[in-house]
């Protein structure tokens, strides 16, 4: 479904990604892991259109995404749950979710989608009128994911969803992501939590200083080598 070929991108004078190639097939869950500063978040931002690539191609279902503005990429079916959640703190939970279905196509079925999101995340249903900024970290992460689901995407990008969450919440979070996956969504997830995420996904890539160093099936990668590389980068 999603394919990157030789993507190079960066900020100003600084290049964060060098000739990155990867693919995500429909229905798959794929992880991108790597040490800090590897370029993982940049990768997400390039895919969702917040950063324009300098070279290379991005294709969704064979159609190029290069140069499209972020809001057009959302319309094509990619939803990005950004690093740090980025929910709207002074809007209610319900309004945050409503923003998720801003796309004209999503608006028509918004009520239905909302019910599905609430059944996946009952805690959100309880707090629908609460201001999002007053939710706990875990609840905000659920809200961010729920919001992404509201746009009825084909592909969901999750950028460091476990960041800043207590270990107990992290376990629950990955459970939820598993359930989202079971609903049939294709997922590309960036994570620091290598062990947990490898238990969740089909395949994984190791990104290091802007380049793909290793890739493979998740069950084959649960070796010390890969994990050590991802954590320490040696």
């Amino acid at each position, binding site marked *: 479904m999603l394919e990157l070929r030789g993507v190079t991108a960066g900020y100003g004078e600084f290049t964060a990604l060098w000739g990155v190639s990867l693919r995500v097939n429909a229905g798959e869950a794929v992880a991108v892991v790597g040490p800090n500063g590897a370029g993982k978040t940049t990768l997400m931002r390039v895919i*969702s*259109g*917040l950063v324009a690539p300098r070279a290379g191609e991005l294709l969704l279902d064979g159609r190029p995404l290069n140069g499209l*503005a*972020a*809001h057009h990429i*959302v*319309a094509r079916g990619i*939803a*990005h749950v*950004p690093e740090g959640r*980025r*929910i*709207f*703190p*002074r*809007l209610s939970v319900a*309004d945050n979710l*409503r*923003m*998720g279905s*801003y*796309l004209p196509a*999503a*608006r028509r079925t918004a009520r239905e989608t909302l019910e599905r999101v609430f059944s996946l995340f009952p805690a959100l249903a309880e707090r629908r009128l609460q201001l999002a900024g007053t939710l706990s970290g875990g609840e905000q992460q659920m809200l961010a994911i729920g*919001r992404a689901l509201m*746009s009825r995407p084909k592909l969901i990008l999750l950028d460091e969803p476990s960041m800043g969450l207590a270990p107990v919440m992290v376990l629950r979070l990955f459970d939820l992501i598993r359930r989202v996956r079971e609903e049939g969504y294709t997922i590309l997830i960036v994570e620091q939590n290598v062990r947990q995420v490898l238990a969740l996904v089909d395949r994984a890539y190791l990104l290091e200083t802007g380049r793909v160093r290793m890739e493979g099936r998740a069950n084959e990668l649960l070796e010390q080598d890969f994990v050590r590389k991802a954590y320490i980068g040696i």
Partner: protein
Amino acid sequence: MDAILIAESAVNGILLGGVLALLALGLNLIFGVVDIVWIAYVDLVMLGMYAVYWLVARFGWSVWLAGLAAVALMAALGVLVHLAIIAPILSSPPVNQLLATGGLLFFVQSFATFLFTTDHRSLRLALPTLQVAGMYVSFARLLAFGVSLLAMVGLYLFLTRTYMGTAMRAVSQDREAVALMGADTRRIYLVTSGIGGAMGGLAAVLLILQYSVHPHFGASFGPLTFMICVLGGLGSMPGAFVASFLMSEVISIGGIITSTEMAYVVAFVIFIAAIVVRPQGLLGRRA
């Protein structure tokens, strides 16, 4: 001091506050969403006042029709200003943004002077004065207040019940995240500028019913509008609402106790003191 007189000025203060609130909300809306203060806002309203004046006095239109036309005109003007002046400087430092809209102020004021001369022009409508409980209340003021209130309710509903309105509130909280929702921030800015302009146009109609217009009208109401916005907390709609009535009461009652100019001085000093004590404004958030 006659109690009735004070009560009357208090009532007038509330009525004045209505129109001030319209101005403040329009300005605040644009600042909250686009993050730029339109220094020239009230001067653009002045243009709206001239528009109504000419349509009624020269072309004989009814005030209602002229009013609608003014609102539409100002909405279009708002969009134009955004496209021509604001959009190119969105990423410039705040200095430049202030100066660009400041330049617009110069331009509008002086162009109006050149086109219309400095003569004060008034609609001279003989609107009745009502007597309520021993107080004299001008009908024009009452009408202006009523219309302002309606407009504010309409704005509130728009911001809370529609997708575009919710998006506008969201943009002021996290610009980038809004793009990730599939919303085109440029279009949101245009809509905001149009609405801000329309509110200014409505205020223009209500103002020309009560005051005469001249090229330096912005000098009377402009600084006051800014003060109200900042006092309430830049970007906070409820704050602007509250601050409008606060200031209008100070000016109205103060004007009875001392002179009008002194009342303004007091109002501005209160403003400075409030900002010094609470820089984010009454209902604003700490940056």
